[in-house]
């Protein structure tokens, strides 16, 4: 493993997934960067092979993760997916869309409805934006979340129509108030089945008598406003599909989605030229997200040293990425719900975002309270020599069969953690700590019994650094 290309591959896997272990990085490096991008976008293997090898085992032992009725069970299930998926980009793009189309358990009282929405993101998240928006407009959780079940021909409710334009596809300044009203009218009659019964159950958080019932989309033509509408300068008896078509053809939507993708996958600070390139690809491919992502991952701006470690990891990225590195939670394990709680304490309750605007990202993830949670959580994982991923790192160092100086050990650990770039000050502190007990002896037949625990302690200290908080 050489520093030259490890850094770039590790960067790709942090952004397109939830990081990679040293063994995974070795395998990916033998494939090469461009082939890895291809595989991320179109995972190899049988078409019917799921993203998880052991989902049946998870559902067998975690009976609560079989029904996905409770929020913490559903959060734990998603974290399990992030840690163990064979299709990391599928999971990452689902997290991206979940943040953009933020739909929260808190109003729905129905965790599986939000999980079902994330399944739509997995299925459609790298396809055409038009398909995704259409699925979203038909998604029962979204219909409930933004009150489209109350959007009637004779009494329009503008909530979904407004957020579709403002938060989901175009952004303020690219449409008028009249467009919002027309958009809402186009989605009248788009509702859920049995709205009265389901609303009563949701309002009293009813699990009775026999657990929650899934919701279904229903279109009621008799409740749809079939009259002409003027929307973004066009006139016609538009229905929801027509409105989505018009949105997806607009340069504003291309720029909006390009900006959101850049912010999530590249850097917290926008680069107008890069966003322009992504926007062009969006328009060229009629909004094909996979094509936009391919351009993004192969671009110079993505590969640039300038954007590496230029994003603050979200709590989900931090806990899933660290658990993946540590080799934790690879099969049924009741403590994974604790991991979900840790992400919650860090400020990201997946499946339950704070509002329709989603989470405030970047440096807003970190304050004095959440930083302590982040450090403790990551440190607990990587400081535990019984974790298979930690053990594997120690074994790699032992494999060198030689005595390593504190400086060499720090360098090796930083490289194995994905060529983590740290400041000179941080490096000096790490070396100072590592040097307290002298060299690390890994010679065959003369292995220092303390070397393993010392490496684990060093890893624990590394993941407590400022730099590890960055992706």
């Amino acid at each position, binding site marked *: 493993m050489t520093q030259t290309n490890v850094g770039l591959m590790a960067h790709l896997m942090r952004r397109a997934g939830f990081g990679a272990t040293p063994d995974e990085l070795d395998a990916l490096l033998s494939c090469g960067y461009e082939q890895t991008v291809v595989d991320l976008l179109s995972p190899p293997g049988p078409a019917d092979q799921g993203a998880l090898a052991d989902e049946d085992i998870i559902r067998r032992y975690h009976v609560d993760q079989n029904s996905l009725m409770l929020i913490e069970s559903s959060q734990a299930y998603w974290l399990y997916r992030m840690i163990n998926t064979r299709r990391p980009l599928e999971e990452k793009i689902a997290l991206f869309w979940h943040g953009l189309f933020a739909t929260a358990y808190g109003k729905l009282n129905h965790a599986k409805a939000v999980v079902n929405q994330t399944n739509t993101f997995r299925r459609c998240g790298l396809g055409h934006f038009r398909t995704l928006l259409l699925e979203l407009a038909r998604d029962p959780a979204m219909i409930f979340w933004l009150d489209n079940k109350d959007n009637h021909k004779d009494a329009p409710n503008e909530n979904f129509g407004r957020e579709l334009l403002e938060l989901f596809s175009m952004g303020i300044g690219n449409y008028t108030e009249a467009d919002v009203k027309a958009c809402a009218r186009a989605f009248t009659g788009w509702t859920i*089945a*049995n709205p009265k*019964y389901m609303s009563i159950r949701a309002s009293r958080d*009813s699990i009775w008598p026999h657990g929650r*019932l899934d919701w279904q989309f229903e279109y009621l033509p008799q409740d749809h406003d079939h009259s002409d509408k003027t929307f973004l300068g066009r006139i016609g008896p538009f229905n929801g599909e027509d409105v989505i078509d018009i949105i997806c053809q607009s340069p504003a939507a291309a720029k909006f989605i390009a900006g959101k993708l850049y912010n999530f996958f590249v850097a917290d600070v926008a680069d107008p030229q890069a966003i322009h390139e992504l926007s062009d690809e969006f328009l060229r491919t009629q909004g094909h997200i996979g094509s936009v992502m391919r351009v993004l991952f192969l671009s110079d701006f993505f590969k640039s040293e300038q954007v590496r470690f230029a994003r603050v990891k979200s709590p989900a990225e931090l806990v899933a990425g660290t658990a993946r590195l540590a080799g934790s939670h690879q099969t049924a394990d009741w403590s994974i719900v604790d991991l979900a709680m840790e992400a919650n304490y860090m400020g990201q309750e997946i499946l339950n975002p704070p509002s329709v605007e989603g989470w405030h990202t970047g440096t807003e993830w970190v304050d004095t309270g959440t930083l302590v949670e982040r450090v403790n959580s990551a440190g607990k994982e990587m400081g535990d020599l019984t974790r298979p991923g930690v053990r594997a790192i120690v074994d790699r160092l032992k494999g060198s069969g030689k005595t390593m100086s504190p400086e060499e050990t720090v360098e090796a650990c930083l490289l194995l953690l994905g060529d983590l770039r740290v400041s000179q000050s941080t490096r000096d502190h790490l070396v100072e700590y590592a040097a307290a007990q002298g060299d690390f002896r890994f010679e065959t037949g003369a292995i220092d019994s303390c070397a393993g625990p010392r490496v684990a302690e060093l890893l624990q200290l590394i993941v407590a650094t400022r730099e590890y908080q960055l992706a």
Partner: protein
Amino acid sequence: MSAANSPVYDHTIGFQSNQGRGFNNPVDLALNSRGILYVLNRGGPETPVRLPYKRVTICTADEEYLGEFGTGGTGNGEFWWPSSLAFDSAGRLYIVDEALQRVSIYDAEGGYLDHWGEGGSRDGQLNRPSSIAFDQDDNLYLADSLNHRVQKFTKEGRFLGKWGEPGDGPGQFNMPWGIALASDGTVYVADWRNDRIQKFTISGEFLGQFGESGDGEGQLSRPAGLAVDSTGRVYVADWGNERVQIFGPAGDFLASLRGDSAPSRWAQDYFNANPDEARARAESNLEPDLGVGVATRSERRREESANIEKLFWGPTSVRLDGQGHIYVVDSLRHRVQIYRWAD
């Protein structure tokens, strides 16, 4: 399929409750000699506030609630991942726990008496023990799931024997779940990840197998609990296919049940107390056409069960009362659906 070849739906017991009257993710039940039901609630997840969901509910088949005992935890008599229960001939109740790797023993009122078992892979040690059954001599047979074997113990926990090893050949297992004994002593094991049922003599000699992966008649997807009646018919909770299948003594397919539940008496009590919800429910279509949109047939079955309340969802166990009644533990719907043979 004629009614004579298939059991008919009788009624449902149950109501989702976190404590008290009702169930929470029940995974198994046992009937004592007087026909009283002991329903094992696994609950979850394992957070402090939800640990009390784990308990045994005691009731009758007519939904008379008689009480409950137990709670989540790791102390004596407590449960973490309880998975199966059975009575010995003296009326003591044995509950096996997949997480705590032990069998705990209770009196008929739920008083804790003792426990035995420890984790490991040596003779007598356990690794995710999932199901237990007694023979007529009060020996206990245990599906030792992650050790991919069956172990035999005295009821006090003394190791008597074992058979099986990892694999998919005759007599081999891949994470077995359910175990049941026929009146002639034949041992049936639901070989979970091999999608088949295997038959053995009481001493572990392989007798045969039936079932294969799939969702057609006679095919299985991750079979869980199972039971055998006095005529040799085998009832399998076909967990991955969200159904129960019934086989003849030779493994020939006889019938399939997908679930027919109507609200239980406890459910009716709830609707009587919440008439607005009952009215809205009565106006609803509870059997919607789901169309398409999910990838595989097993996913579609699971989604059907999540949408249509009457269907089985995560059936984990089948038990018989010897009177022609079939009790299906309908885990994710927090209830037991009861069928009976028309004859």
